[in-house]
Structure formats: C-alpha cells, structure tokens
C-alpha cells in the first residue's frame, strides 16, 4: 500500500471526499456536483466560453481580488483602531514595525486592481453583448456591484487618516453638499422652509449625513470604518451570490445563441 493510498483509504478522508480522484469522466462529473466550492460551476462548459481571449478572466480576477481584500482586511482589522488617536500611528506601525505589515500594501494595491478589474469585466461583457437577454438583470446587479466596489474603495481611502485620505474624502463629499433638494448648496434646498425655518442646513443636509459632521472628523472615520468593514462588504457578498447564481440560471457563460 503506497503512502497516497494510506492517506486516502480511510474513513476520515472518505467522509470529506466521497469519491476517488477525478481522473476519469464519471468522477470528473461527480467532483463538480459533490464539492461545495466547485458546485458554483456547471459540470461542463462551452470551450470558447472559457477561452481567455473571450472572457479576459476579469470577472474571476475581480472575485479573487475581493477574497484577497476580505482576508487582508480582516487581518488589518486585528491591528488597526479607527480613532483619531490611533488610526495614523497604527498605519505608520504597519509600515515600519509590524510583522506582515505588507498586508496593507496587498490590501491597497488589491483594491486599486479590483476597481480596474471590475471595469474591464464590464467592458468585456459589453463588447460581447453579454448583457442582452436573458442576462439583463445580471448586468443591473453587476452595475450595483461596480458602485459598491467604488464605495468600498472610497470609504477605505479615509482610514489611514493622512493628508491624502482626509482631503480626498473632503473633495468627494463636497459633492454631497450640492445634492439637489437635500444638500445645503444644492438647487432647491433653500426653498424647503417651514415657518421661516430652513429645513436643509449644514447640520442636516446630505453631506452631514454622509460625514456625520460638517467636515471630515472622528465620527466620519467611525462611520466610514463601519461602512467599509461591515455594511458594504455584506451588501457586496449578497449581490455576488445573486450575480453568480444568475450566471448559472441565465445559461452560463455567454456565447452565440
């Protein structure tokens, strides 16, 4: 009995993997049906549907980068404290002192790469006309994922609490001030007056809601931290599940009808 047999020929192994190695046709089918991670895939696919010159591998790359962000992000959360007192120094320590502080580099470059990968994925889906029926709704889900990816990146941009962070968020959030109707400098806001009291002020407008203050401050840091680490990732996870499920239900990877 070889060592390989000794490892696989016992009750523990067989309770995890319920069939032999996928070396013949039957087991190659079975492995796709019995493995939780592989069951995302169909048993068989069109050959051109998986050609790199067709798919560019950008949807998969996006998902891979999302997983990288989750793993490195959780590791960073063990270390980083989102308070004015600690935030900047924690990042400084990640750079200079902390073992495996490179997680921050992986997280930041992975985030940039993910934004680019999402764009390229959508670009490919457009160029191949893959948003057309029956995949219209999945394109809508994908657009929402694009928006959430940008918001994830945007909220994460603040967390290092350096000049780059605070002013990028300031520039970005100044737009909210100009939202029609609900921004203090937006058209129409000055018309919303109740008994002579303006409803939309710099303490009650869209920018205030976004920043939890009139300017970027500690409450903004806390708010963006929660959005970045909990709220948006949960929403993204839900939408990714729907997105993948619909890829299967809408006929798999697109191809000529």
């Amino acid at each position: 009995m070889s060592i390989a047999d000794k490892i696989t020929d016992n009750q523990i192994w067989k309770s995890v993997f319920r069939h032999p190695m996928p070396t013949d046709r039957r087991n190659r089918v079975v492995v796709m049906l019995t493995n939780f991670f592989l069951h995302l895939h169909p048993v068989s696919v069109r050959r051109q549907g998986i050609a790199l010159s067709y798919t560019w591998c950008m949807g998969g790359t996006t998902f891979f980068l999302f997983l990288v962000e989750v793993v490195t992000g959780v590791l960073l959360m063990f270390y980083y404290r989102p308070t004015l007192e600690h935030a900047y120094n924690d990042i400084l320590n990640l750079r200079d002192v902390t073992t495996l502080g490179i997680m921050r580099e992986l997280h930041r470059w992975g985030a940039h790469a993910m934004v680019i990968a999402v764009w390229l994925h959508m670009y490919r889906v457009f160029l191949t006309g893959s948003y057309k029926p029956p995949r219209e709704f999945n394109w809508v889900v994908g657009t929402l994922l694009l928006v959430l990816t940008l918001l994830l990146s945007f909220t994460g941009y603040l967390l290092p609490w350096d000049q780059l962070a605070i002013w990028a968020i300031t520039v970005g959030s100044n737009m909210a001030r100009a939202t029609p109707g609900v921004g203090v400098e937006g058209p129409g806001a000055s018309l919303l007056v109740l008994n002579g009291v303006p409803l939309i002020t710099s303490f009650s407008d869209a920018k205030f809601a976004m920043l939890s203050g009139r300017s970027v401050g500690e409450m903004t840091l806390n708010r963006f931290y929660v959005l970045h680490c909990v709220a948006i990732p949960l929403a993204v996870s839900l939408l990714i599940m729907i997105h993948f499920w619909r890829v299967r239900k809408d006929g798999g990877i697109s191809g000529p009808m």
Partner: protein
Amino acid sequence: MNHHPDLTPGVMAGLSWFFLISAILNACAAAYISYGELVSEGASRDGLGPKTRRMPNWLRGSTWLFYGLGGIFLIISMKMSFWFLSIGSMILAIFSAADAAFFAEHDAEHSDRQPSLNDHQPAIGIGGPLNRAIVTGVWSLSTMVFAVMGMTYSLGAEYAMPQLFRDAIDGASGATSFFTIATLAFIAMIVFRKFFANGITAWAGLNLSLLFFGLSMTDYDFRDIVTKPDNVPIIGLIYLVAFFTWLGLRRAVINDARMAIGLPNLEELGSEKTLTWPDLVYTELIALVIGTVALILWAIALQAPLEQPASSTQAPNPSKAPWYFLGLQEMLVYFDPWMAGVVLPTFIVIGTMAMPYIDTNKAGNGYYTIRQRMFAYATFQYGFLVLWVVLILLGTFLRGPNWNFFGPYEYWDIHKLEPLNNVNLSDIFWIQWLRQSRPSAILIRELPGILLTLGYFAILPGLMYVVFFKKYVAESGIIRYSVLAMLLLFMASLPIKMVLRWTINLKYIVAIPEYFFNI
C-alpha cells in the same frame, strides 16, 4: 525650468532595465514572427495553417543559456544579469531576422510554392499577407535600439528627452487639445479598425509608447507625478485598457469579416462542450497563482502611500479625489457640483443599468462584433474610453495646483495664473447682443438659457427621431426611445459644454446662483 536633476543613478538603473525589458519583448516578437505560428484565431480550423519553421537548435540553446544565466544572476549580481539578458536578446533578434531574410531569399528563387512560409498570413479580416522577413527585421531593429539604449544607460551615459521636444509637447498640450485628440483618435480607431486590429500596428504602437514613456521618465516633473504610488495603477490601467480595447477590436473585425463571407464567428467555432474539471478548474488555479504572485510582487516593490497626518487646516493644492473619481472632478471645470458630482454620476449609473433594456438589437449577443451593433458599440466605447478613462488621465496627470492644466513635463507651479474670463449666456445675450443691462427678474434674465435648455431636451429628441431613430421607435417603442434620448443628451452635454467653454468662454447656460441652480 528644472528645479531638480533629470537623471540620477537610480533613474538610470531603472531606465536601463526598462529598455532591456522592451528589448526582450521585441526579441521575442522577432522570434515569434520568424519561427512561430503565424496564423491564428480560427485560421487553423479553416485550413490556413498553422505554419511554423523550426528554430535552429543552437539558437534555441543560446537563448536558453543567456536567459537562464540572466535569471540566475538576478539573485547574485543584477549587473551581470543585465548583460546576459541584453546579449541573449540581441543574438535572438539578429538571427531570427537573418533566418527570416535567408528563407525569404531562398523562397524568392523557388516561388512555385503557394502559399509561402514567408508570407505572414494574418487571420481573416486583418488584411493581406505581410512579408515575414521585413516584419522580423523591424522588430529586430527595435530590439537593437532598446538594447543599446538600456546598455548605454547601464554604462553611465547621460542623455534625456531633448528639452526642445519637451517644450513642444508642453506647448501643444492643453485640456482642449488633449480631449480633442482623444476624440479624433477614437473616431480614427473605429473608422480604420481594420488597420488598428492588425497585430503589427498594435506592436508598433506598443513600441512607440514604450519609447515615449521611457524617455519621458528622464524628466523630473513627469517622473514626479507618474511615480506617485497611487498613480502607478493608472499606468497599468492605460496599458490594460489599450490592450483589451485592441483585443476586442481585433476579435470584432475578424468576426465581421468571417460572417460577411458566411464563415462561423470565432465564438461559434468553440461551441462544443468540455468538462469543467480539469479545463476550467485548472485555468482558475493558474490564474489564482499568477494573481497572487503578481500582487505580492507589487506589494513588495511599491510601498503604499502614507503622507503627513491628517490636518483639517492645511489643504494640499491640488486636492484630488481618489483616482477613479477624477473624471468626475474634471467635470467640475465645466459643471457645477450638483451636475458634475450628483446628477451626471446618477445618470451614468442609471444609464448603465438601463442599457440592456434600451439596446433591443438582438444581434451581437455572445460574440464580438462591431458591424452588427455599430451605434451601441461606438456610444459605449466613447463613454468609457474618452469620457471616463481619458478624463481620469487628464485629472490625474495633467491637473496641478488650482486645477490648472500642466503639460506632462511642466513643473507644477503653484503660482501659475490662467486668465478666467468666463461669461454666462445671460451676459452674452443681454449685454453683448442687445447692448442693455441684464433684467433684474431672475426668470427673464435667464430666459434665453432656460429656453435653450428646454429646447435641448424637448426638441432634439423629436429631431433625432425624424433623422435617425424612426426604425428604432417602431421596433422598441416610445418609452425606450425617450429614455435613450435623455441618456444620450445628458452624455452629450459634457462635450457640448466643453466646446462652448473653449470657443466662447461660456460659463453657465442658465446661471441662478441665488438658488445654486447653474447649468
């Protein structure tokens, strides 16, 4: 005006490696053209190929030897590694070209064989055969140029992009010319797509961009902006978007040509089923490994930026949003925040989501094509490439303090003054045309602009319907057309406002600052 040295030892070392990598790329291209499979993308299934010529064993051996030694010495001595790789590339390029030329000559004497191995036979739709010897010769020459540039930098020669050239580019560049050239280039790409889809054209473009980029890095001010850590991904974005645009264009051109002569398109060629395990699963595993390695190397090579601690009193100049929003920030030049920051982004998102519902063209589902969906293809690509990516590049690399425009080699002078004599439409109408003061009643004062805006959104859809969209409305209905027309008009409003700014210095069409309502 240079405040800092253009060339430092570190820059020269970096440039020598940059040009070496360019040389290696070209040596590989020369060898590929000389010996590799020259017909692709479905051609082998059409009986056109593949045709390969055997690489001589000694050349194969020398390439492995020099590149292998170069790889090993990477750890021991970078200098040695550099020379091994340089010499190996030059040998590979020279003899690939010589071999191709020899066979071309040999073939010219025995021209009875058809088709000839010396004809570079591109895929269907990409144009006629090209002379293998000439193409190999040109890439071989490029290898020499890049290798010599790399070696001279390595030996300590100090040369930079000529100041005259830099001044000419700085002088010619401006927001106007940058955007106009991008738009014209886009139109040229669509019109002459057959030319651009050719691999030879694309490779020549890559070589030119590498040369331009490498020489530009000798300029301190260019380098200062481009090597900001957060800007590095955007350099990657340029090359990735360019490559995938080319790939999509090429596949579409080939498909269009194939379908025109009744052949199945490339996607139909591979419609047989294959098992997910092992084909797809292994591809995913390899992609996973490559992605992980690439990301780790990137993380080791480039440190994430960390500037001074946040200070709400010291605003940096320029203050920029994260790079992916810089296209929107650039729109602030032409629109008020409520338009550039809220309304137009909302329309971008809604319009993107609406696309599958307003694009009722059934053709082009699941394969690359331009001819069958020209309007959708060109509109989307213009929006993505020019109105999104090009504006991001403009906002990132060419906008300096006070959001002034700076040429790529220009020092970001915080005191640079640009005359701003922008006027509102109401000024033009009442003061310049009617030669009277503006009426005090807001609505009357702004009546010309309001009428113009209402007319834009109310009359143009009707005109567009009569001229272009009768068939579309008959097929898809008035509701879809209304949405499409609104989205198109909002999209067009950006270039329109740009042109109005550049030509008549127009600031606002409707200017009611009393209620923050400026268009």
